[in-house]
C-alpha cells in the first residue's frame, strides 16, 4: 500500500520536472531564493554592523565624559540601538517598519526612531524580498502551477479510469500526488535550508546556541507543514474541479484573496475595532495622570510636602538644606519613580490595544494558513511585534535604571548646599560613569515565544489535521469521470 503511494509520488515528481516550463519555474524560484538569501544576509551584516559600530561609539563617548554633575549625565543620556536576531535575515518581519534607535534620558520617554520605512519613498509598500516572502507567497504559487491538473488532467485524458481500475485507491492517488508535489518543493527547500543554516552559523560566528538551533528546527518544521497543507489543498481542488481550467482559476483566485487582499482587510478591521490613541492623546493622558499624582515643581504640592515633612522629622532638622544627603536628588528620584510607573502603565495599555488589533489577523489564521505561518515565522526569527515590544521594555528599564543611578549618585555624592550663581558647579569624578553598564538587548527564549504564538500554532495544526482528514475521507465524493 505505501509502496503504491511512493510509486505515484515518484511518477508525479518526475513528470513535473520533465515539463520544461515547470523546471524553468522551479529553477527560477530556486535562483531568486538563493539571491534573496544572499542579499538578505548581506543587508543583515551591514545594518547590524552599523548598529554595533554606533553602540560602541556611544559607550566610548559616555565613558569619556569629564567630571560633572550626575544630573548632567542623566540628561546627556544614552542611545540604544535595536539589534537584529541572526535569524532575521531569513524573515524581515516588521524589521523595516520598526525604529532602530532610541534616546534614553531622565524624565522623558522617547520613541524608537529611524525605521527603514521612514526613508522609503513608497517602494517598501510592495514588500521586501526575503527568503520567508518567497517561501510564503511564491512557493504556494509554484505548487498551484505544479498541481492544478494533477488529478483533473488524468480525468480529462481518461487515464484516471484506468488507474482506478488497476486497484489504485483514491486515497493512494491523492496521497501520492500530494507527496510528489511536496517532493518538488523539497528539492528547492532542502538545499535552501542548508544554505540558511550555513549563513546563520557564520553570522553567529560558528558559536551556535541551543536556543537558536531549536528556533531553526521549529521554523523548518512549520514551513514543511505549510507546504504540505498547500500541496494537499491543490490536489483536492484538482480532484473536485470540473476541469483543469476551473481548478487553475480557483487556485489563483484563492492565492490572490488569501495572500494579497485578506491580510490588509483583517488588519484594517482590527485597527477600526480597537482604535489606538495618537501620540498627542497618549502624552496628554500621561500628563493628566502625573498631574493627579503630584507636581514636584510645585512647593505646595501635598504629595511632595508630605515627603519633605517626613524627611525633616526623621532627621530632626528644620530645613532641607540641613539634611545629610542631597535633597534635590531625593525628590527627583521620587518624581522619576512616579512618572515612570504611570508611563509604563500607559505603554502597557497601548501595547494591549495593538495586540488586540493584531489578534484579528492572527485569528484569521484559522481561515488562512498563510497568516498563521507568517506569524509563526516572524516570531521565531525574532522580527515580530512581541520582540519589538520587548526591546522597548528593556530600553525603558535601562533608562529608568540609568536615571535612578544618577539620582543616587547625586543623593550620595553631591553637597546639599547649592553653590552660588557665579561659583563653579558641583561635580563628581568621571570614574563613576563606568558604574553604569552598557545597554545590551537580550532576546527571549524560544519557549516563551512559542507560548505567545499558541493561537497561530494551533491554527496551523488545525489546518494540518483538516487537510489530512480531507485526503483520507473525502474520496467518496470525488467524481471519477
Amino acid at each position: 500500500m505505501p509502496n503504491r503511494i511512493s510509486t505515484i509520488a515518484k511518477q508525479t515528481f518526475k513528470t513535473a520536472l520533465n515539463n520544461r516550463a515547470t523546471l524553468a519555474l522551479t529553477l527560477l524560484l530556486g535562483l531568486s531564493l538563493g539571491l534573496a538569501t544572499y542579499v538578505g544576509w548581506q543587508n543583515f551584516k551591514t545594518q547590524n554592523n552599523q548598529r554595533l559600530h554606533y553602540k560602541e561609539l556611544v559607550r566610548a563617548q559616555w565613558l569619556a565624559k569629564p567630571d560633572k554633575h550626575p544630573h548632567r549625565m542623566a540628561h546627556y543620556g544614552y542611545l540604544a540601538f535595536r539589534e537584529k536576531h541572526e535569524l532575521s535575515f531569513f524573515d524581515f518581519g516588521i524589521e523595516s517598519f520598526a525604529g532602530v534607535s532610541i534616546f534614553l534620558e531622565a524624565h522623558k520617554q522617547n520613541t524608537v526612531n529611524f525605521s527603514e520605512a521612514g526613508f522609503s519613498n513608497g517602494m517598501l509598500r510592495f514588500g521586501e524580498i526575503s527568503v520567508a516572502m518567497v517561501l510564503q507567497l511564491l512557493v504556494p504559487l509554484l505548487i498551484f502551477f505544479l498541481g492544478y491538473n494533477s488529478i483533473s488532467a488524468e480525468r480529462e485524458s481518461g487515464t484516471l479510469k484506468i488507474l482506478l481500475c488497476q486497484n489504485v485507491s483514491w486515497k493512494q492517488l491523492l496521497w501520492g500526488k500530494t507527496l510528489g508535489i511536496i517532493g518538488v518543493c523539497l528539492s528547492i527547500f532542502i538545499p535552501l535550508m542548508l544554505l540558511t543554516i550555513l549563513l546563520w552559523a557564520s553570522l553567529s560566528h560558528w558559536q551556535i546556541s541551543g536556543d537558536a538551533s531549536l528556533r531553526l528546527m521549529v521554523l523548518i518544521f512549520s514551513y514543511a507543514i505549510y507546504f504540505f497543507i498547500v500541496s494537499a489543498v491543490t490536489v483536492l481542488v484538482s480532484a473536485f474541479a470540473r476541469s483543469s481550467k476551473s481548478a487553475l482559476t480557483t487556485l489563483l483566485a484563492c492565492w490572490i484573496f488569501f495572500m494579497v487582499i485578506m491580510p490588509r482587510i483583517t488588519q484594517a478591521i482590527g485597527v477600526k475595532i480597537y482604535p489606538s490613541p495618537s501620540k498627542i492623546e497618549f502624552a496628554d493622558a500621561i500628563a493628566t495622570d502625573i498631574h493627579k499624582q503630584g507636581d514636584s515643581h510645585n512647593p505646595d504640592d501635598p504629595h511632595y510636602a508630605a515627603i519633605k515633612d517626613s524627611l525633616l522629622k526623621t532627621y530632626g532638622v528644620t530645613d532641607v538644606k540641613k539634611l545629610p544627603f542631597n535633597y534635590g536628588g531625593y525628590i527627583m528620584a521620587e518624581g522619576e519613580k512616579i512618572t515612570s510607573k504611570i508611563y509604563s502603565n500607559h505603554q502597557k495599555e497601548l501595547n494591549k490595544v495593538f495586540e488586540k488589533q493584531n489578534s484579528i489577523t492572527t485569528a484569521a489564521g484559522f481561515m488562512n494558513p498563510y497568516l498563521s505561518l507568517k506569524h509563526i515565522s516572524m516570531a521565531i526569527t525574532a522580527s515580530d511585534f512581541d520582540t519589538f515590544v520587548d526591546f522597548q521594555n528593556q530600553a525603558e528599564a535601562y533608562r529608568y535604571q540609568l536615571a535612578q543611578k544618577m539620582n543616587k549618585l547625586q543623593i550620595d555624592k553631591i553637597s546639599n548646599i547649592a553653590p552660588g550663581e557665579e561659583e563653579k558647579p558641583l561635580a563628581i569624578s568621571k570614574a563613576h560613569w563606568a558604574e553604569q553598564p552598557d545597554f545590551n538587548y537580550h532576546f527571549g527564549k524560544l519557549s516563551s515565544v512559542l507560548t505567545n504564538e499558541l493561537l497561530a500554532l494551533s491554527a496551523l495544526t488545525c489546518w494540518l489535521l483538516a487537510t489530512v482528514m480531507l485526503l483520507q475521507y473525502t474520496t467518496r465524493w470525488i467524481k471519477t469521470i
Partner: protein
Amino acid sequence: MKKSIYNPEFKLFFRNSSSWIGIIVLLITGFAGLYFGKTFINNQQAVIEKAAMLQKKNTLSNIDHFGKDIGLLFYHNKFSFANAPNAWAAFANGQRDINPYLISVTMLGLEGQIYDTDINNPVSLLLGNMDLSFVFIFLFPLVIIAFSYNLLSEQKESGVWSLLRAQTNQSFQVIWQKFLVRVAVIFSVALLLLFVAILYLHLPVDFIFFSITTLIIFYLAFWFAVSFFIISLAKSSNFNASALVAVWVLICIVIPASLNLFLTRKYPMPEALQNVINQREGNHEKWDMAKEVTMKPFFDHYPQLKQYPFPEEKTFSWFWYYAMQQMGDDQAIASRRAIENKLAARQRFTNTLAFFFPTIQTQLGINNMAGSDLNTHLDFQEAVRKYHEQIRLHFYPGIFLNKAVDSTDIKDYKLEKYSPQQIPSVWANLLSISILTVILIGTTVFNFKRQEQF
C-alpha cells in the same frame, strides 16, 4: 449600425457569471478601500483638531507651572505643526501612516525632535493600508487578466475558432470586439468608482483629479496591452492564465520587492544614526567647555542677537543654554545634509526604475499627487525647520533679557498647518506608461498579422 455588432458581445459577456463576480469584487473592494481610506484620514484630521485644542490648553498649564521663569517655560512648551491631509490623501494613504503628520517641538535643538515618530502598530504598517489606490493598482489588473486571458484560446478550445475562420476573413475583428467590450466594462467600473470617490471623499474636480484619472486610465490600458499581448501568442487558456498571473506577480510584487532590497543595500542610511550622535555631542559637550566656545559661533550664526547682554559671569544662564542647544543643530548640519543627499539619491534611483515598471510609476505618481509620499513629508519637515527658527528668533529676546512671560505673545500661538507650495506634475509618469503600452500593442498587432498569414 455599427453599434449592433457590439450588442450581442455585451450580452454574451454579461451572461457569464464570472464577469459579474469580477465586477462585484472590484466594486466591493473599491467601496471597502474608500471606507478604510477615509476612516484613516478622518482619524488624522480629528487628531489635528484635538492637537489644536491641546496646544492652547498645554500652553496655559505650562504658564501656570513655569510662568515665573521664562527660560524654563520655553524649555517645556511645545509648538505644534501639522501636515493636514488634503482630500486626496483618503484616496491614497501612501506613507502618511509611517511618517508623522503632526510634529510638536520645543525651542530646544530641533534635530533631536524632528525625527520623533508617531506611536504606531508596526504590524499595521507592515500589512499596509486598504485604500482605493490599492484597488486600482493591484486588483484591477487581476480582473483585467481574468476577463481577457481566454479570449482567443477559449474559441480555439471549443472549436468555434476554426469554424469562424472558415466563414470570415475578419477573425481578428471578432477578438478585437470582445476585447473592446471588456475594456469598456473595466473603464466604466473604474470611472464609477472615481465618481463615487468624488462624492464620498469630497474630492475637488480639478487638475489633480484629471491627472490621477488619466494616470489610472493609462495604467489600466497598460494591463490590457499586456493581456492582449499574451493572447496574441495564441497559446492555451491555462498557459495564458499562468503567464499573466506570473507577469502580475513579477511586476506587482517580485520586481519592486527585489529592487527595494537592492535600494536598501545600495543606499544604506548610517547618516541618520550619525546625525543623532552629532546633535547630542554638539550640544552636551558645551557644558564642559568655556562659554565662548558656544557663544562665538552662536553670534556668528545670528549676529542680530549680539545686542542682548550675555551674562558671562553667571555659571548658568538660559542665554547660554539655548545657544548650546543651537550648537547641537549647527554641528549636525553636515550629517543632516548627508541624509538629504542620500534620500535624494534614493529618489532618483526609484524614478529611473519606475520608468520601466508602470506599477511603481503609478503608485509613486498617485501618492505624489495625493501629497502622501516621502517628498511631501520632507517638504513638511523643511517647513517645520523654518517655523522652529521663526519661533526661536521671536522668543529669544524675551528669554535673553529674562522678561516676564506676560510680555510675550505666547498665548496667541496656535497650531500651524503646512500647506504645500507646488502642484506636482504627472507628465513623466504618463509618458513612461504610454511608451510601454504602445510597444506592447505594436508587438501584439505584429503577432496577429503574422498569424493571419498562415
